[in-house]
């Protein structure tokens, strides 16, 4: 298989399967999780402004008071790489085109030099959180194969994408193909690993917010 055939495969069949498995997995997992249901809370509720599932969905994106100081690397590193990923994934012109072709929606892109910077910063932040995971007793204690694995499959698309744009190591064609392949791996494993938090965190926050909002506690 030459690199053009490789690229053609990852853009064609490979992506078809990856997107298919991703969708299949997401739908299956969401039903699997949320169909378990929960009992209705029949205690008298106390309603308080700002205490609801929806509030918590948004509020949990901000660190609770004092926590940044307790774990600065987790927060700063975490924010940086999540925001960085967002920028790189959603504001890079070629990516926007992909979304446009899929959903018909498009939005302005950021200059590629900025994306380049964002990619480097994202990778740096990811390396920092990885080192933190290795160094910090709690994180190391909690870490399983899944944690190292998901870090890798998240890191690779950024790395290969950046290297493709920068023309490092391998010819652009091969790198672009590897980039798309790494995204496909990410798509395939996302529904079945902790990466699925990208979907369930909304449900989790909503449940937490609702259960506690019922008691008049704005969590």
């Amino acid at each position, binding site marked *: 298989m030459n690199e053009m055939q490789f690229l053609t495969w990852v853009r064609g069949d490979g992506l078809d399967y990856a997107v298919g498995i991703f969708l299949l997995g997401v739908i299956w997992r969401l039903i699997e999780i949320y169909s378990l249901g929960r009992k209705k809370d029949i205690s*008298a509720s*106390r309603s308080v402004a700002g205490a609801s599932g929806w509030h918590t969905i948004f509020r949990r994106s901000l660190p609770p008071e004092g926590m940044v100081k307790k774990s600065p690397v987790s927060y700063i590193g975490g924010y940086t790489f999540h925001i960085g990923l967002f920028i790189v994934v959603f504001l890079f012109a070629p990516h926007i085109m992909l979304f446009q072709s899929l959903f018909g929606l498009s939005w302005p892109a950021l200059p590629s030099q900025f994306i380049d910077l964002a990619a480097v910063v994202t990778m740096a932040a990811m390396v920092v959180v990885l080192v933190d995971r290795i160094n910090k007793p709690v*994180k190391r204690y909690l870490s399983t194969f899944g944690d190292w694995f998901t870090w890798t499959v998240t890191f690779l698309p950024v790395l290969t994408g950046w290297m493709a744009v920068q023309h490092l190591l391998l010819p652009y064609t091969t790198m672009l193909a590897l980039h798309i392949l790494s995204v496909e791996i990410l798509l395939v494993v996302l529904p079945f690993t902790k990466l699925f938090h990208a979907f369930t965190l909304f449900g989790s926050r909503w*449940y*937490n917010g609702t259960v*506690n909002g019922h008691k008049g506690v704005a969590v």
Partner: protein
Amino acid sequence: MSASLEKGVRVLKEVIDAPIASYFSSCVHCGLCAEACLFYTETGDPKYTPIHKLEPMRRLYEQEYTLLGRLKKMVGLSKPVTDAELGEWQELVYNSCTLCGRCSAVCPVGNDIVYMVRKFREGMSASGNAPDGIKGAANRTITIGSPMGVKLPAVKAQMKHVEEDYGIPIPLDAEGAEYMVMLSSMEIINFPEYLGAIAKIMKQAGKTWTLCSTAFEATNAGMQIGNADLARVIVSRIVEGAEKLKVKTVISPECGHAYTALRWEGANLVGRPFTFEVKHIIEVLGEFQEQGLLKTEGFETDRLTFHDPCQLARRGGVIEPQRKLMKMVAQNFVEMPDAGYMNWCCGGGGGASAIEEGEELRLEAFKVKKSQLDAVRPDRLVTACANCRIVLEEGLEHYQMDIPVIGLTEMIAEHIPDQTKSEGA
């Protein structure tokens, strides 16, 4: 699989619901919950990371309710939960968790970890893996009526004392009273001033109230041990008592988990909405204060600070009333760092204070409270939970800190002008 383990697993299968599934699926092992847990921050031992305390339940969830988990179990990638493992987890689920809910407040993906610990305890208790201390308390509550073995005669004796001391009659089983006042056995035995304070406050507010001879004990060891069946037995007594006396409101005493058991779990345990309201005494005092029914005179002049009981504040949503009440009678009221919503637990909630073998850990965890207190150096510490009060006193004594602990209700009551005098004026 032993019969007890089988029962535990069955109970867990019953209680695992969509929120738990969602929480387990969302966890990214970031470890931030550890930073919120006093058992981790004060010991530095990663096994006290809150989410780790749920590991057996997480595996069970995966194996029972997810397709991949089932496959993993089949091919031996995921080990089944064993009795020995649950036994090992006893320390993590009970001794080192006070259900304080700080972890649930900080989890970035929004996991309500303490919600899960509460459910996990259902399986732990059903499989016989609850600690002896709480088992004893549950046993006494069910058989005798109170975790400390207090029976009605003891209550009656206290009533008599208070009536004599305060010159105010204490109503018992008064049908149609507006308020039914609950007590915790801690208050009956250790802090009788509470009953007197209630009498004074009610008298001043001009409200009718009563104790109930079949339901004076508010604490619920069934909930602490994490067993809905036992918790239901206990809460049902209160529901029956309140319905029999046709009261409008049941007042939960200065006790955190009693409030949670009655206010939030009660209706769900008995399976129907209450015909009465449930309020914490602090809520009631706050209402009286707002309605002008609570009038005090004089001020405490020493430096006072307030310890928020977790179940009242973070898990119960009552945060402001106690502060307004403090300011009503204290000139020199200072707040500890993290006070209010993010206050640190005393270390003995959720039944932990009943576990003897957990004492050393509890005292270790108390260091966080010590540092909070060191930051403001109060003369006295006020709180609104009899259990917190006992645990705080033990901790303060251990660390040789000379800070008396008092209940907010009794402090308020002390500032209520003498009834006869005010009537005469």
